[in-house]
């Protein structure tokens, strides 16, 4: 009995690889594209931040130029109330007493409420 031999011409190739078509571009190009989009975004972002910084500077200096004016008005109002408080104290107590052991101007903690409606 003859031995069982391979067929003439050998066996057919065994397909062990997956035979799927590669879709799209090479991965490298996707990475390049991503970086380009990111670079554009950062470019816009930095320019936006610079503009924001200048706008903030503009706003701050506008306020700085107004600060003395607003502060002067507020100070005058405080001084007016301070003198009114002092006069009232003198009228009620007959003498002026220093409440705080300090020469500094102290904003009063409690406001005087007139008994009559004033405004």
């Amino acid at each position, binding site marked *: 009995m003859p031995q069982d031999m391979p067929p003439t011409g050998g066996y057919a190739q065994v397909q062990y690889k997956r035979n799927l078509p590669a879709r799209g571009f090479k991965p490298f190009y996707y990475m390049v594209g991503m970086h380009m989009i990111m670079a554009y975004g950062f470019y816009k972002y930095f*320019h*936006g931040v610079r*503009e*924001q910084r*200048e*706008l903030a*500077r*503009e*706003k701050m*200096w*506008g*306020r*700085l*130029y*107004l*600060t*003395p*004016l607003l*502060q*002067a*008005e507020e*100070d*005058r109002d*405080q*001084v*007016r*109330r*301070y*003198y*009114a408080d002092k*006069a009232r104290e003198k009228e009620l107590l007959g003498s002026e007493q220093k409440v705080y052991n*300090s*020469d*500094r*101007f102290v904003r009063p903690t409690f*406001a*005087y*409420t*007139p008994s*009559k*409606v*004033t*405004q």
Partner: protein
Amino acid sequence: MAQRDPQFNQHVLVDTTPMPDHIPKVEEIGATSAFLSSAAYFIGDRCKAFNDDFMKCKDEANGRGEIECLKEGRKVTRCAASVIKDINTHCLDQFKAHADCLENNNHYLFECRKAEVSLNSCIFDKLGLKKTIPGAPENQVPVHLRPKQKYAQYPGPQY
């Protein structure tokens, strides 16, 4: 249904005693925030010396600046009032337009460049006051002169 009327009592909390006579009177500025922020740079330009004087006085008064710096404070207020008065006499329309624009745009200066440019040129022609932002980088256009404003609702050319 039980009715509950609103009761406001803030008005009784105001102490209306006038300033004592030995302190000279000064009329308060009386301008609203939009007008003030519109005129801020011109106030700063004309009144810088008074402003610095006042702040220096406050700084050196050792906590008693409220009382001791009243004189400087009056100068500050008078100077600012003079600026507002001059703008009102010479550039009232542009001033109003800019302040209205600020009022309608959350006080964003970058939304109102068109009104600002006409106000600034009018004030520079009539009063000689100029808006400059200290500390801005010198190699680029100052932000208030850039035609395009990136953060405005319409970011294209403003004027």
